[in-house]
């Protein structure tokens, strides 16, 4: 202890203490560094969310379709319900560039004892069809008293289709039933959704 006291007094450690502390302060400032990190990794970040969103739906009674038809014959050669909706989602630049796939899922519940075709197609602003038209053959139902017959179909729009559809502004769809007897009953319920697979790179 005496040696320490001696050092403290004689060697002048006390007077050096401020410099030692400042030195320490300087040292930690100089030593301060950021290591083992790589900020360029931001470029590797890829966002791949999947959005599951309702598409179109319908509940159509065959009798309504029949009564809309002017033809008075017992067997109607063809009954069609057409529709055109505004659908400009794919026209967005972000969507065109960053959506890698869209999976459309259609589910029909049919109680009409008749099969039919469901058809849809995208249109541009001039109502011109773009890319291919999609047709889903729907199974015949087993009558209004039976459980509805379910037809389920996935349609995959890949990158090529999404790019091709980048000018789409409308969606036209139709339900076409052939050779419909006037006493046909039952209904069609359509549910559909779209899975949008995004891939966004920073």
């Amino acid at each position, binding site marked *: 202890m005496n040696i320490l006291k001696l050092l403290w007094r004689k060697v002048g450690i006390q007077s050096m203490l401020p410099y030692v*502390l400042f030195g320490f302060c300087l040292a930690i400032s100089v030593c301060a560094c950021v290591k*083992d990190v790589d900020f360029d*990794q931001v470029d590797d970040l890829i966002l791949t969310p999947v959005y599951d969103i309702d*598409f179109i739906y319908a509940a159509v009674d065959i009798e309504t379709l029949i009564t809309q038809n002017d033809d008075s014959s017992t067997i109607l050669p063809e009954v069609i319900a057409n529709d055109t909706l*505004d659908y400009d989602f794919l026209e967005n630049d972000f969507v065109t560039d960053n959506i890698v796939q869209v999976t459309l899922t259609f589910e029909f519940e049919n109680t009409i004892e008749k099969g039919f075709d469901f058809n849809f197609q995208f249109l541009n602003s001039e109502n011109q069809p773009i890319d291919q038209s999609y047709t889903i053959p729907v199974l015949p139902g087993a009558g209004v008293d039976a459980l509805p017959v379910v037809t389920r179909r996935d349609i995959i729009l890949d990158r090529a289709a999404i790019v091709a559809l980048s000018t789409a502004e409308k969606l036209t769809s139709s339900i076409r039933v052939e050779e419909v007897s006037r006493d046909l009953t039952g209904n069609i319920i359509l549910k559909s959704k779209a899975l949008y697979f995004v891939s966004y790179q920073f």
Partner: protein
Amino acid sequence: MLKTTQRCVRILGCVLLGLWSVMVTHAQQKEGMYDFTSIPQSLLLNPGAEINFNSHYGVPFLSQFHANLGFKGSSVYDIFADDGRSFNAKVEQQLNQLTDRDYGTITQQLELLSFGWRSTRNPKLYFSGGLYQELDMIAYFPKDLLLLAYEGNQNFINKSFKLSDISATAELLTVYHFGYTKQLNKKLTFGARAKLYSSIFNSRSTRNSGRLTTIDTPNGNNFYTHIASNIDFSVKTSGIASLEEDLSNEEDASSTITSTIFKRALLGGNLGVGVDVGFSYRIKEQWVATGSMTDFGLIAYTKDVQNYTASGSYAYEGFETPEALTGRSARDFLDELEEALDVDTTQTAYTAMRPVKLQGSLKYMFNRDDNGSCNCVLDGNYTLYSDAVGIQVFSQFRPKRSQRAISLFYQKRISNFLSAKINYTINDFSATNIGILLSAYFYKINFYLSTNNILSYGNLAKTRELAVQFGFNIIP
């Protein structure tokens, strides 16, 4: 358009990642400076500090620089570690780990002017004033919405995403202040400071509410119903719309912006008032308790206001077809959404409180720092001690909940020209936050330097908070 969108998303992403990068648990706390009465800037933390000097003049623009960066919950290293793991894996881990209580903050202050003098009529009265600039930002981690952006809703059917997760404020302002410190009696010193805030810009989105949910509806019209329920969302801004305009005017944009900012800094923008109060109380000769409340005030934002609001509810289950049968006209999802949620841009004035800070300490002093000749108590002055230990508490009001910290400290007057203080700060996140303050006095010039988390200086990337403070004063 695409480039702009990408740039915006990229910038937003970088800002979010940047906010992730560091963490702080006590944004504006200056644990070293509080009640360190030989530095004049301690009066800004407690106007009732027991100061001994007779006057002070801060070196203009250099009397105090303070910066504090941080993120509660994560560190730069957690995100950017060069450890061979994929970046996405690290981001995912953070997304799962962090909660909506975590946040990032940036606080910075630069003192432009600082002065003070002891009254010649009443030596127990000390006046001080000055001007400083302050930048203060806090953004809570919007967990639900980042999750929705990162993973989508596919795996979260029937789960709600809360809009209340969005909570952030940012402000840049100058503060003009003047106050006094008075030793009322042998035990009590009291001080108060009036503040005039001159806002340069302010932006806040707090107290949002509402939920976004995709509900599975087996008996419904379609597979799901997407519901935006009870949405009440707003982003209030002031001083930003005109700066954006200046920016878009490409000719001479920088000089226009500079002059606009200067004008606002010089009381030409939105104004507010506030007050600081504080005290020091000698419980016994060697025991001192202190307390202060700073930035109790508000700013009225009336000029250059632009608010973005949305409120209401909306449900979407797809488009019904065929129109011929439903009798409905064509629907536009975005138009419907905008109408249902009453999306609007307004110029309604608003007021906002400044983030109030409460601080307190209890200090025990020992080792008399004079040769015993001073009859200080009889003279009405305080006896000087070279050493002190104590405890400090800090709390700052924030949009979601207050930030708190508690510190233990030891301070020592090492020699006539050097004093130091070491703080150990306890919080939920760090058991190793040691801060240090050094204050030197050479030929009437005072220089101080303070930092925290010194143990992390070996690799700052691993720290979750970092504060630095330094300045020069002339104390005749």
